[in-house]
């Protein structure tokens, strides 16, 4: 999807046992959707930063949601049960939902894990791309792209860099 496109509708089960929809995030200034999974080393490297960002921006009305659409037949580690264990183990402060049909993630146009889509209060896409520029070593990050975008949008400004190229593992399509 392109910048300013509307967030596709979704109705997805989470590891918390709830069904999550766009309406679940009503009242939140920003919705940060991270296309994620369980087994990708890039995601594993970023999980701590995802949790920290979600906690840091929660009081500013920013909601996070991680969505796993990987084909769980070929990658059983990405099924709901291991997802539930992962969310608990990592202490995810945000919903971790399963897109088994892959329809939502396809509608986003996502290709990699992790890949970030930030929607404003009107649920229009305002940032798309990577979390930052160094998954291996947080100390060597030179461009905190998601952090910068959330800060700018939180201040009512447009992100200086609204699009970056996401990198990671390819989504495991059915």
């Amino acid at each position: 999807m392109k910048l300013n496109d509307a967030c596709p509708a979704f109705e997805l089960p989470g590891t918390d046992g709830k069904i999550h929809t766009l309406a679940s995030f009503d009242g939140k200034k920003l919705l940060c959707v991270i296309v994620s999974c369980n087994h990708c080393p890039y995601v594993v490297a970023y999980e701590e930063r995802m949790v920290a960002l979600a906690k840091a921006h929660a009081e500013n009305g920013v909601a996070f949601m991680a969505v796993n659409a990987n084909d769980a037949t070929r990658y059983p580690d990405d099924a709901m049960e291991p997802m539930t264990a992962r969310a608990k183990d990592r202490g995810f402060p945000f919903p971790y939902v399963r897109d088994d049909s892959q329809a939502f993630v396809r509608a986003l146009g996502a290709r990699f894990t992790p890949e970030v889509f930030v929607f404003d209060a009107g649920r229009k896409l305002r940032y798309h791309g990577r979390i930052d520029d160094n998954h291996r070593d947080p100390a060597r990050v030179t461009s905190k792209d998601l952090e910068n975008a959330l800060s700018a949008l939180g201040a009512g400004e447009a992100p200086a860099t609204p699009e970056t190229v996401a990198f990671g593992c390819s989504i495991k399509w059915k």
Partner: protein
Amino acid sequence: MRSYVERGPYALYPEPEVTENVIVGLVHNLAEHGKMYCPCADVESSKARGHEMVCPCTPHHDDIKRQGYCDCALFASREFAAGSCDKPGPDETE
């Protein structure tokens, strides 16, 4: 990598930013673990599979056949590379 692409049936994934990151991951694994294990797979699991997950890995042929590119998004079919790189999945590459 270059000779594999030049002599083999595949092209590089058509986004240099993406392939550059994969190559950095391969070099990192070579330096840290002694082999160019696929950066999109857990290294310890890859070690247990012998040479299977050393780039170019055994599954990359099936990956490219199924979705147009390998799971690391390093190699792609020449058809995929020649077309739009915005294709999100196999539905669009068939």
